[in-house]
């Protein structure tokens, strides 16, 4: 595996050839493998107005991370029960929320005057960084020194689907490409046999914005995230029909490609050569995908470490798969875990029980993921990101003006916590502060576009230069804003 500085020089060498055959350097092809085989094929049917590769140079910035594992807690976990310790809120518990926190503000469900709600967990400081973590995350509190916290992230969106879209596509509306698509568009992928952008979901449901969160939007569809499934084929249509043997499938693909080569001789369309290569890759993927997704052969101590149970859909299994995909050099590994929307309308959405259950389900595996990446030397060039789509109110939710049956908090975009670790991130760092009750950031606030700029920066991509022309203008992940948060950099 290459170190970042080696990759830097390699990317420079790749660049000139990459733009000639980008459409082939798709599913994990990094360009190199097919470069010699395909020459400048694949451009005929496209046009100058439909770029299929990023127009930026490979080295806008020095890359510190080669890949990303993004853990998204769909539904938005409460920062006030996990990482943002607010003792003053204990004192205010049960008091009416002052009008200054309500006037001119928009909430999803709060109406009238809600009560303030003290933290529903106990906090302590951990590690050399003395980071506050609640007792809902006992395992994670042992690795806080690997992690940099962003404590005053903010967003304008306070409903799940738009906020998730903003977080992962840079816009709250439908139709933009996902971050993972932008990244594979900008960097290609290093793996020859696997997609460059893989998505794993857990928690029983997909996130509110669904498959749109890994859509390639207006980028070429080759950049779309590939969802690996736990039921049926891990990737759609991976299994051969009619009990066809591997040998026979191989022979049939040889026959297809032989006839296609003849076709190319007659018509000279370079797309035909691309197609030949893609059939070869499809044949390889039929083996490599199930192999990488199969966690059953991992040793017992690894299963113990993550708390995995092979064959079951869980966040723990997905964490272990994420490590395997990182080892296989998949560029962007996106996890979504459903079930964090603690409004207090039922037991499962209560801060007392629902949130504790969810924290229990992620605490051990996400800690294991960081330790496991570290012990394999992968953490230094893998950027791990954790967060939700927004935060929760310091007030108790009172849907329709009446108090909910369980303790819960409404959606809140003004301040919430995320963390990053690994590739190019300074462990133990902390950025941003919220006010005494965790309602809003008071300094070092970070907008979603800043978070995105930071992630791209660590991969060596300048968020202002990674653009794509569509509907008459150049679009980018960060829209017209965003600034990388340099204090986090290691």
């Amino acid at each position: 595996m290459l170190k970042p500085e080696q990759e830097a020089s390699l990317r420079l060498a790749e660049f000139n050839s990459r733009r000639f055959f980008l459409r082939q350097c798709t599913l994990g092809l990094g360009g190199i493998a097919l470069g010699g085989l395909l020459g400048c094929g694949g451009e005929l049917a496209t046009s100058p107005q439909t770029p299929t590769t990023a127009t930026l140079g490979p080295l806008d910035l020095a890359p510190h991370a080669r890949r990303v594992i993004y853990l998204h807690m769909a539904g938005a976990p409460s920062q006030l029960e996990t990482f943002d310790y607010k003792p003053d809120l204990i004192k205010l518990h049960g008091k009416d929320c002052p009008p200054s926190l309500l006037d001119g503000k928009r909430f999803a469900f709060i109406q009238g005057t809600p009560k303030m709600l003290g933290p529903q967990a106990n906090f302590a400081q951990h590690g050399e960084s003395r980071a506050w973590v609640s007792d809902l995350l006992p395992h994670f509190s042992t690795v806080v020194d690997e992690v940099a916290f962003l404590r005053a992230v903010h967003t304008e969106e306070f409903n799940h689907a738009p906020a998730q879209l903003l977080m992962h596509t840079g816009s709250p509306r439908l139709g933009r490409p996902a971050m993972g698509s932008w990244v594979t568009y900008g960097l290609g992928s290093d793996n020859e046999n696997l997609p460059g952008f893989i998505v794993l979901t857990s928690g029983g449901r997909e996130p509110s914005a669904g498959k749109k969160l890994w859509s390639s939007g207006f980028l070429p569809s080759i950049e779309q995230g590939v969802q690996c499934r736990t039921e049926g084929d891990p990737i759609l249509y991976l299994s051969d029909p009619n009990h066809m043997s591997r040998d026979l499938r191989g022979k049939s693909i040889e026959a297809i490609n032989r006839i296609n080569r003849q076709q190319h001789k007659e018509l000279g369309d370079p797309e035909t050569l691309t197609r030949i290569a893609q059939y070869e890759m499809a044949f390889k993927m039929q083996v490599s995908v199930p192999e990488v997704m199969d966690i059953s052969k991992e040793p017992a101590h690894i299963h113990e470490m993550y708390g995995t149970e092979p064959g079951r859909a869980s966040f723990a299994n997905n964490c272990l798969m994420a490590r395997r995909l990182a080892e296989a050099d998949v560029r962007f590994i996106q996890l979504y875990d459903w079930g964090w929307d603690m409004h207090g309308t039922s037991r499962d959405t209560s801060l007392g029980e629902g949130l504790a259950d969810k924290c229990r389900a992620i605490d051990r595996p996400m800690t294991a993921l960081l330790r496991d990446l570290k012990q394999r030397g992968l953490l230094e060039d893998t950027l791990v990101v954790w967060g939700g789509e927004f935060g929760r109110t310091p007030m108790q939710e009172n849907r329709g003006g009446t108090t909910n049956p369980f303790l819960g908090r409404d959606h809140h975009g003004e301040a919430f916590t995320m963390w990053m670790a690994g590739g190019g991130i300074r462990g133990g760092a902390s950025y941003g502060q919220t006010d005494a009750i965790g309602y809003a950031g008071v300094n070092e606030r970070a907008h979603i576009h800043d978070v995105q700029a930071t992630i791209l920066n660590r991969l060596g991509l300048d968020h202002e230069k990674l653009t794509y022309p569509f509907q008459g203008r150049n679009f980018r992940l960060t829209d017209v804003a965003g600034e990388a948060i340099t204090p986090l950099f290691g």
Partner: protein
Amino acid sequence: MRILLLLIPVVVASCTEADPRVSFNADVRPILNAKCVGCHGGVKQAGDLGLIFRENALGAVVPGQPRRSELIRRVRHEDPEVRMPYEAPPLSEAEIQTLERWIEQGAEWEDHWAYEPPVPTPPSSPVPDGGNEIDAYVADALLASGISPAPAAPPATLLRRVSLDLTGLPPTPEEMETFLADPSEAAYSRAVDRLLASPRYGEHRAAGWLDLARYADSRGYERDRPRTIWPYRDWVIRAFNDDMPFDQFTVEQLAGDLLPNPTPDQLIATAFHRNTPSNGEGGTNNEEYRTVSVMDRVNTTWEVWQGTTMACVQCHSHPYDPILHEDYYNSFAFFNNTADHDHVWELPAVRIPSAALRGKIDSLQNWVTSYGTDAEADYWLRFLQTREPIVRPYYFEDVVGGVFTDRADEDFMVMRSGNSFLLPTTSLDSVEALHLLSGDRRDYVLEVRLDDSTGATVATYDSQRKQGSGPKIISLDSVRGRHRLFVTVTGEEKDVPLTNIYGFYFQARLPGAGRDNYAAVKQYIADLAGSRDSVQVPVLSDHPPEMQRTTHLFERGNWLVPGRVLDGGVPAIMPPLPAGQEKNRLTFARWLTAPENPLTARVAVNRIWGELFGTGLVATPEDFGSQGAMPTHPELLDWLAVHFATDLKWSTKQLIRLIVHSKTYRQSSAARPELGDDPYNQLLARGPRSRLTAEQLRDQMLAVSGLLSDKMYGPGVMPPQPDGLWDHIPYSDIKWETSAGEDRYRRAVYTYLRRSVIHPGLTTFDGSSREICLSRRTETNTPLQALATLNDPAFTEAMHHLVGEVLNETDDPALAVDRLHRRVLYRPIREGDREDLLQLYREALREYDGRQKDALFVVANVLFNLDEFLTKS
């Protein structure tokens, strides 16, 4: 890329050498666009200098005096701190001289080519034998390059190409045999006419149009509920099959509801703009998402009809084109008065009644036509079609106690005992009753008083006297003049919601009182109002004048920061709206198709050209502005545009007929060494070649295997897709239920399209996600596509079926392979290919213990995956 840059000046500016005069458009604007407007444009105007409008440019340009022009001083300056472009390589001496000569000659400005009206110039080359004017224009450009056109494509290739292009389907074996027996010009013309007359034509064209219309069978976002809008898809198919003139096609979709006495079809046409996604997630604000929809309608209209990137001026003036921030909201004003509001019920909707209701509707309609004035007839027609206008809670005034939820799934006013509000001033002269739309939760009495809380009671409703499930019809005392109505609700239980009010419909008095049957016909009003026995299609429906919304400019595009008021208009660069007409959608739609509009016909013919050739004459159909591509054949584009709008009377079929009769279209698509300098086929010296679209792939697979159903229209169908894809959508329990019978084998245009989980057959092959308008799909070539055509059970089912049919004819392996090949590829098999496939067949036969059917399936699997099969050549 380099080739393109060289090519454009040759084609576009070929006259500059003969004419010493500098052309702003051909010579100057390209320099400004490439080197200057990034900092001195419509948005960023560094040093207060913008180079989009001449007035602004004059700050740095003194006409006639290059030496006194700051622009020249700066581009020539030796100090890199002062020289422009700043922190970039200096302009070349030739570029600077061009600018100097231009200033010397008076620094005349020209509008961008696309805003100048198209004026046909005859081609220099003659029309070739067997060709048409198109070929002459193409020859003009080819002459300059010294390249000759390609020979004609072989007849089999040509028939397959034109069949796929016109109907989306390959020819049948019989059609192919007929044509191969007589591939004459006349036979080709007959084939083209047959294809244009086929109902399959409309289905194919609709598939392309639905990308622009962002058509889907669901609403998008979190819950992604179903939407009943397939009648719009069927309208599009019919419109294409009937060859509805493009100007009418435009007006009906954008403003069919504002036409006099609109037919139900004209209302359904307006569903074009009800295809916008809506957000049903619990906490979302309806006004916010209504605003999002209106913006989408503005952007889509300008992209589809004008190739103009209006979305660029949502937040600020256009960075590159002469379009201002306020122009956006002047367009917004046209679309801002429809009654839709991101309502969960997707209203307003046109009702397509069941047969059972038809009689009552006809009777009522005949009645008002016979006994009412024209205005009364119009009023009742609107009642029958849409039940609009409804006065919804956002119009309620002086609300006391009532809580308007204005949330995704709760678009009503929650009323507790003692709560009240006022309905806005309206004329009550002819009003006979109020229809109350409400969801009742407890018993209550609703009282309506004239003007205010102390006015006379003019109507009362007691919820204990239930009227069934529909709206409650509350008769109103006869009142004259314009009044507000005070509405209050009282009940025994305090502080609990009594009813959720969605709105009121003001029902007029039925004309013809005293005639026979009056009472019976009047009863139909209640029957129809309460009936749910109809298909409801969301459509556009404007608020009446007194309920119109005020349009504000949004500062920086933020809907929460309204700026000054605007009432509708078009950019100054374009021809003005006709004087004396109401500023509404209909006027705007007619302006689009007026002869003066320089863009509509160009954009339309360019789209058709792009669909046939893979790339438009302007390669950016979505952007005819200064940042879009220049036309490769400007004279051809203009001639086609004018010909289309005048001689051909906007007939799309005639336009397509013309293009496919050109020799240019009928060329072979094979590569030739001399085309090496033109990899994108910008010179049109060969025929088109591109991978089939997602829809064509499915349809072709079903067609060649003999499975394809030709059933047309109706709700979306659910062909097989992998299990479980719909299982994990939050708060949604609707299921993908695989269609039975022939619905399993319908064309792709009928496949149920759910935005959150589009059928993988569409997404894998570059289909649109149907969330926003998409002018062209980006063609990719991926291993996931290979896996799909190799292994998708829908494909393998077709392969099995075809094998079965062939085995019914012969069990001789060599013959069977030949027949399979002919069924799939329409030509005799090459000797070498036969050997390869027979070899594979024998290997498969061993693996499958001699089961011929299984072994032949492997051969079919190969044939369905050949480049030749997947490509239009």
